[in-house]
């Protein structure tokens, strides 16, 4: 399913989107299907599935640990695409990974593998628009959205360029820093939501972990929230994982529906 279609559906229902991240292969390749299914049952609207890279510079300790577990379990890009093909999701799925894995596979092949396995979008945290002409071209050819990030430090000039080029949704980085769960909503987040003026849906990530925050962010004008570390934390603890993922997804989904 295309990402913009999903956002349109949600808009008609006056709901925000819950975009749920976990890392594929954490803690084992077989676990991914069960966990993704649990997130969908809990109400996730889009799944963001990490493809683990050895040197994740944009990630904090929680997701770093998840990525390490995934790598230790033997997750590779080949297994990743096979796993995704077997998921048969009815909601959009986006891949989040670092540029070297895409570059090494070959941009063309990576995009084709994404399209063939049912991936609708790509998020690459270490690829600013300046370096992404080639990937943007192959994504377009394969009808895949290349999702850009904007940050509180992004200048007007860069913002305009990113908004002009981004498709699917715009990923608003809620605060300076790496990924990791927090319990509050920073002032800079609200400000950024106001600054990003576009018809492309806006989703806010980095630091969101509970339904109350999710509700606040939607009220501040965002179209969706992206939650990662809080889910990965559940996997790290390793108890009743599927049930807890589902419960947290439900809490967050209630939040983005404005029922918190």
């Amino acid at each position, binding site marked *: 399913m295309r990402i913009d279609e999903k956002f349109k559906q949600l808009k008609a229902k006056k709901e925000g989107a819950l975009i749920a991240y976990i890392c594929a292969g954490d803690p084992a390749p077989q676990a991914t299907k069960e966990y993704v299914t649990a997130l969908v049952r809990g109400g996730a609207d889009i799944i963001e599935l990490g493809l683990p*890279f*050895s*040197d*994740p*510079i*944009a*990630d*904090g300790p929680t997701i*770093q640990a998840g990525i*390490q577990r995934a*790598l230790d379990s033997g997750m*590779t*890009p*080949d297994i990743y695409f096979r796993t995704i093909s077997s998921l048969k999701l009815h909601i959009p799925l986006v891949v989040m990974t*670092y*540029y*070297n*894995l*895409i*570059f*090494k*596979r070959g941009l063309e092949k990576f995009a084709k593998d994404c399209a063939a396995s049912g991936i609708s979008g790509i998020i690459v*945290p*270490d*690829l*600013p628009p*300046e*370096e992404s002409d080639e990937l943007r071209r192959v994504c377009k050819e394969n009808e895949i959205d290349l999702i*850009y*990030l*904007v*940050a*509180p*430090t*992004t*200048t007007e000039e*860069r913002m305009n360029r*990113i908004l002009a080029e981004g498709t699917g949704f715009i990923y608003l*980085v809620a605060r*300076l*820093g*790496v990924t990791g769960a927090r319990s509050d909503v920073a002032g800079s987040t609200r400000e950024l939501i106001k600054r990003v003026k576009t018809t492309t849906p806006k989703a806010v990530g980095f630091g969101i972990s509970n339904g109350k925050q999710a509700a606040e962010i939607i009220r501040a004008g965002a179209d969706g929230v992206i939650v990662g570390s809080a889910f990965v934390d559940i996997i790290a603890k390793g108890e009743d994982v599927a049930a807890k993922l589902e419960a947290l997804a439900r809490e967050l989904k209630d939040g983005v529906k404005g029922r918190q």
Partner: protein
Amino acid sequence: MTLKLEPKFGKYGGQFVPEVLMPALVELTEYYEKYKDDAVFNDELDHYLRDFAGRPSPLYYAKRLSREYGVKIYLKREDLVHGGAHKLNNTLGQGLLAKYMGKKRIIAETGAGQHGTACAMAGAAFDIKTEVYMGARDTVRQRMNVYRMELMGTKVIPVKSGSETLKDAINEAMRDWVANVETTHYMIGSVVGPHPFPTVVRDFQSVIGKEVRTQILEKEGRFPDSIVACTGGGSNAMGIFHPFIEEDVDLFAVEAGGSGMKTTEKEALHSATLSTGEDGILHGMRTKVLQNKYGQILESSSIAAGLDYAGVGPELAYLADIGRLRTCNSMDNEALLAFHDLCRFEGIIPALESSHAVAYVKKAAASGELGDIVVINISGRGDKDLETVMGMRK
């Protein structure tokens, strides 16, 4: 009128960083373009290089080593620079730039601890709070440098992720920078990372090669036939090579051959990135990278902590591709033997990093490929390595 900097060296270089950092790179580029040829800035930097760092460093004719190896050898004595390595040339330059930029805090990564030490010195000299990330494994094998940094008021933060070496320290420093970019300058320690760092660091290190130009003309009335430098990230190499790029001088980049040229899915037994790495993206730059078939970065290996890195400066990758640079390597044991040679024949205790360059000259002199006169960059002194060397003797 300032000259705009080129962000790429051929296909290498660029800026592969999180969006949060892009404005900081733009800011750094603008400041550097503004000050690089500014008279006041350069006077101040010269003052620090001369009176604080002790420049110019001598170019020394190594008579006994020349006789032993069968080629006329000059040693560029960066080991005599304050702090014991070339690293201070860069940290004084970047430190001053950070001061002009009004940054309140400096962060850095360090492998051998030499760059960290040089940051600590610059941090103290310019009165800027300094924190250094260092792989936990390196904090053990280079603990004297940890203590030196602490003495000068720098906080050393051990990094426990990955292989606990330089690559992981860079990752952690970049994460810190992402969180504190508005107040903090990331003082990268080699000609690596996103643009403009490879250019900035090369320029600040080029003082080495500029001095060699004058010094060798005084002593020999001509340029050397070849220049040999060890290459980790590549800053001492680019520093001595760059002023000779347009000259008829052969340039040899010596990488760490470690314990052998083998690699597995996860690790390399060496750090020979230029000669065996493949095109990739690491730490904000496109360059040659030690990686597996999927693009996962390998853990590298070397007896010299400062060479133990899976990437290399993008300009070196470019110069190697176009054939302007010869890439070669020395193994751990060869470097150790050369270390002892320099100690005994010349009364100079070199860093294990620099010993790799000496070792290559030892191997290659007989073939004649180095010509008649060779300059070796002794990038640092070996006091920091004594424990490692003592350990190897057992």
